[in-house]
């Protein structure tokens, strides 16, 4: 081993561009957001220190609480349906086929831009011309204004994004399934266990650590719903889809209340960290049942 004492100087050189980008566009702005959250800043004048006032304001801001509630509803519907469907797909693929064509087809929506996905479904779900409502009418059901009703808007957006993410999530779970030794399944087959019984007693317990990681990743992503709302409902009808990300965007870039928006960013960040930690604890992600 040549091991010249430390290759620090060379490392610095190689890290220079990425480090520059990291400091300038990630680390420094992150710190600035913390600072701005304690200021009154409208982009025109310099930030003005106001202490915790923005946070106090958030606590009594009904629209903020509404945004959290709406986001929570979105995450709940999105994640529960998505995880269930993805699990179904993954198990079916695992038991039926290794075809990369099937896997590819299921992954395709995930590679398409959120904006594109939102607009395609916006067209398909239109109250007058959408194919989904045409299909409903065949079955004698009255057309639904999916994006236009306060009661259906959030579930609709949640399901649209289930469509985009279910294949991707299924592939992550599928990778976890492949790590389960074949012998376990062979033993179950010899015992004559039914598919459903195998799923309950073998697959689920062994899959838990993977499922936990997938849940943490998808829940964090789900909280950051923005694109779909921005191009379809823009927060409406009334405040039914004014999710937290969109609310912050409006505060910052339409009302130019940067200080307040920064405070909401910090709150969102803390919620995300809290949710991730709680999930890891509850799901005991670190330990495996595979012994």
């Amino acid at each position: 081993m040549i091991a010249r004492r430390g290759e620090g100087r060379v490392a610095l050189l190689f890290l220079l561009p990425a480090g520059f980008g990291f400091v300038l566009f990630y680390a420094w702005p992150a710190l600035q957001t913390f600072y701005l959250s304690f200021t009154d800043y409208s982009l025109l004048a310099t930030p003005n220190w106001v202490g915790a006032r923005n946070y106090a304001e958030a606590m009594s801001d009904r629209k903020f609480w509404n945004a959290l509630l709406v986001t929570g509803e979105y995450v709940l519907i999105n994640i529960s349906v998505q995880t269930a469907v993805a699990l179904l797909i993954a198990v079916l693929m695992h038991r039926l086929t290794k075809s990369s064509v099937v896997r590819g087809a299921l992954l395709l929506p995930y590679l398409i831009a959120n904006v594109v996905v939102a607009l395609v479904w916006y067209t398909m779900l239109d109250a007058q011309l959408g194919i989904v409502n045409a299909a409903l009418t065949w079955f004698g059901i009255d057309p639904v204004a999916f994006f236009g009703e306060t009661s259906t808007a959030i579930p609709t957006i949640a399901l649209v994004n289930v469509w985009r993410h279910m294949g991707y999530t299924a592939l992550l779970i599928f990778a976890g399934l492949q790590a389960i030794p074949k012998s376990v399944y062979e033993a179950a087959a010899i015992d004559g266990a039914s598919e459903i019984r195998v799923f309950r007693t073998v697959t689920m317990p062994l899959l838990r650590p993977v499922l936990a990681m997938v849940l943490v990743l998808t829940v964090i992503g789900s909280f950051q719903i923005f694109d779909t709302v921005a191009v379809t409902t823009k927060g409406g009808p009334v405040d039914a889809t004014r999710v937290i990300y969109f609310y912050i965007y409006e505060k910052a870039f339409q009302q130019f209340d940067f200080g307040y928006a920064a405070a909401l960013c910090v709150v969102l960040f803390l919620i995300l960290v809290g949710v991730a930690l709680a999930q890891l604890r509850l799901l005991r992600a670190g330990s495996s049942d595979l012994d």
Partner: protein
Amino acid sequence: MTLARSGEPPWWQRVRWQRAAGWVVLGLLVLITLFPFYWMLRISLSDNRALAANAGSMLPADLTLGAFERVLGLSSLSEARAQGGSGASIDFWRYLVNSVVTSAVITAGQVLFSAMAAYAFARLRWRGREAVFFVFLTALMIPPIFTALPNFVLMRDLNLLNTYAAIILPFFFMTPFAVFFLRQFMLGISREVEEAARIDGAGHLRTFFRIILPMSRAPLMTLTLLAYITAWNEYFWPLLVGQGENVRVLTVALGVFRSQTPQGSPDWAGLMAATLLAALPVIALFVAFGRRIVDSIQFSGIK
């Protein structure tokens, strides 16, 4: 999986039945996944005026390329308006070019600089390496909106709003994912190859460009694809800094297009034609390199 050898007949029969049911469900899910893509095509090849009467039809209503001509600015305004298009002239060629240019520059910078950083983290020995790498990784936890506010102010102060530079810069130097992804691969490269080169008198730069990069061709290729697709699909940041006509990228243009509702109802055919244009390059990349992308997601998602 299903070992036929040891099963008794009743069990065997039941399993086949279950498999058939499984295939039906899986087929249905694939159908649900692919149908919207067909629908995009169907609407984009339709004439707006005929859509209402044929809402339930599976085929294009009054097959025409009018919508594509319209969004690409190839038809005259009166023609466009006659087919239910917007009165405004729209030029998706320009947005397409903007998307191609910004995504390409972002990808080139991001892959090269992330590879250099990955080399430092995986192949070089220096004090504090793991700690610095950990700090890099924490950026994965930060939601984009958290850094967007100060970054926007920075772009404004540099007078870069509505320039390519503003759209490109934050993604140009690295993403935590790219560094992480390449580092994982580079950790696995055998030291001997590197040391042989070193003994031959190759410096670090030479080792990096002549040995490490060629050996990392497969993951670099994958990362290039993923970086390009991600940049292509980005909406939030270009929405903040790139609203201007001359730098507007496809995703932002689609959002603007959707908000224009001429003559009461949206130009559905035009909207779907534009949407298809935005999706097409990704679909093409996917058809060409699908397996690579599928494999990479299984690799990066869990490990």
